[in-house]
């Protein structure tokens, strides 16, 4: 798995990328049915994961549509 400037990601970076994508999917697909405590904390966690993805040059999208 490579980042946006063509660098191969390390093992831990790949795992973080997966966590980010998974949580993003959960919030996108199930945000409406999540309890407030789960939805709001998931969005906050997603904001922090977005920053790691950005720091690893994974080119994460803007997330305003899901309030992140």
């Amino acid at each position, binding site marked *: 798995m490579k980042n*946006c*400037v063509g660098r191969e990601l390390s093992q831990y970076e790949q795992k973080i990328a997966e966590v980010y994508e998974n949580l993003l999917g959960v919030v996108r697909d199930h945000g409406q049915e999540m309890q407030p405590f789960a939805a709001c904390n998931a*969005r*906050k966690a*997603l*904001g*922090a994961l*977005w*920053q790691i993805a*950005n*720091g690893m*040059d994974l*080119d994460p999208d*803007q*997330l*305003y*549509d899901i*309030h*992140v």
Partner: protein
Amino acid sequence: MTESPYWNSRHETMNRNELGRLQVHRLRRLVEWADAKVPWHSQRLRKAGVSADKIKSLEDLRRIPFMTRDDLMREQLAQPPFGPFLSAPAEKAIRYHMTSGTSGRTPIRVLDGIKDWEWISENWCTGFWAFGIRPEDRVFFAFSYGTFIGFWGAHYCCEKIGCLVLPGGNMTTKARVELIFDMDVTVVCSTPTYAMRMAQEAEKLGLNLADGPVKRLILSGEPAGSIPATKKLIERQWGAMAGDTAGMTEIGTIMIFECDHQPGGTHIIEDQLIEEVINPETEEPVSYGERGERVVTSFGRGFMPLLRYRTGDLVMRVPAATCSCGRTWDIYDGGILGRVDDMKLVRGTNVYPRAIEAIVRQFEDIDEFQIHLYTADEIRDEIEVLVEIPDRENREDKDGLLRQLAIKLREAHEGLRMGVKEVSIGSLPRFELKAKRLKDDRIVIGGSGERRES
């Protein structure tokens, strides 16, 4: 967590070619976003013939039109409160901030989302980590925590790093100084002016800051953090290292920071921003070592994209190799040197407030000062420096200091005669934030008959 002098070593030590490729990629994405979501940007980009797919190199950046503070003010006045700049509905934001408005102009209003605040604090983390702030530190913020963005991002940065944060809003200077000692604070964040104010207060309280717990000061909000004489004075008063940073509300965070190698300037956070330096008149880029105006393009804060924003800050860019820390990010030598419009013409000589401060701060007996411009005999520009000197009665050479100061000022300004006058203690304004020590009462500017508009 590995011990590292860098917050993100890959970005901070990236070779310049790779950094350029990353910037081009991010610029393309930024243009794509602004074009798709903000019609105000879209119209301007289209008019200039710019689209994301046409961004192939950093040279292409120059085809994007400049944004100015006047644009922001005008459009926000026309379409209050945020103008046509938002890329998402305001209800998707989590925070509102505005410029301090100390210059008397209409404040700029901004919004940010959850991830924007992660980005804002991240840039502060880059700077704090570089200056040696670590999880075991206790960090005190001499900051009022209002709608002015100031140290908000630094506060979250310290929480992110894992420091113990002591928020010092709504406190007297005395209470702040006492808390610093009571809680063994190791890092203090404030403006340079207020760092000096706290030092005076400590002295009044009989507390010796130089023997106190503080090891590092993070300065922001005024250019003085990089004026050698001012910085030296603050470091001596506190017995601590002082590191300069500078940010702006329009990007929400800092764009430059000083690392603990203290190279006499500030590194530019080049993985998150593109900083250009241009001649403010010709709008052409200037070379390394030449003074010019900062223009910033920010890859963060997608809520209000900022492309080629003319900051009005005067800077001099030098290569990263000027510093021995290993970062490949270029440096603004001397930090922010002032404002492009700060320069005053007095009887044909250029006068910069920063240059005067650099001389005044060499005289440690001077507490507060003010640069006063006025018109004499209804025609002639005059300049005087008003100073407060505490404990004057106990000094041996009462007038020597004033004489010496006048000589140094004249020598540094092509022989321009400047008055130096002592004024009573407490008669000059004090500042906690963004000190304004120049008062221009002239009715005629430049001695050439150009009348003042207001």
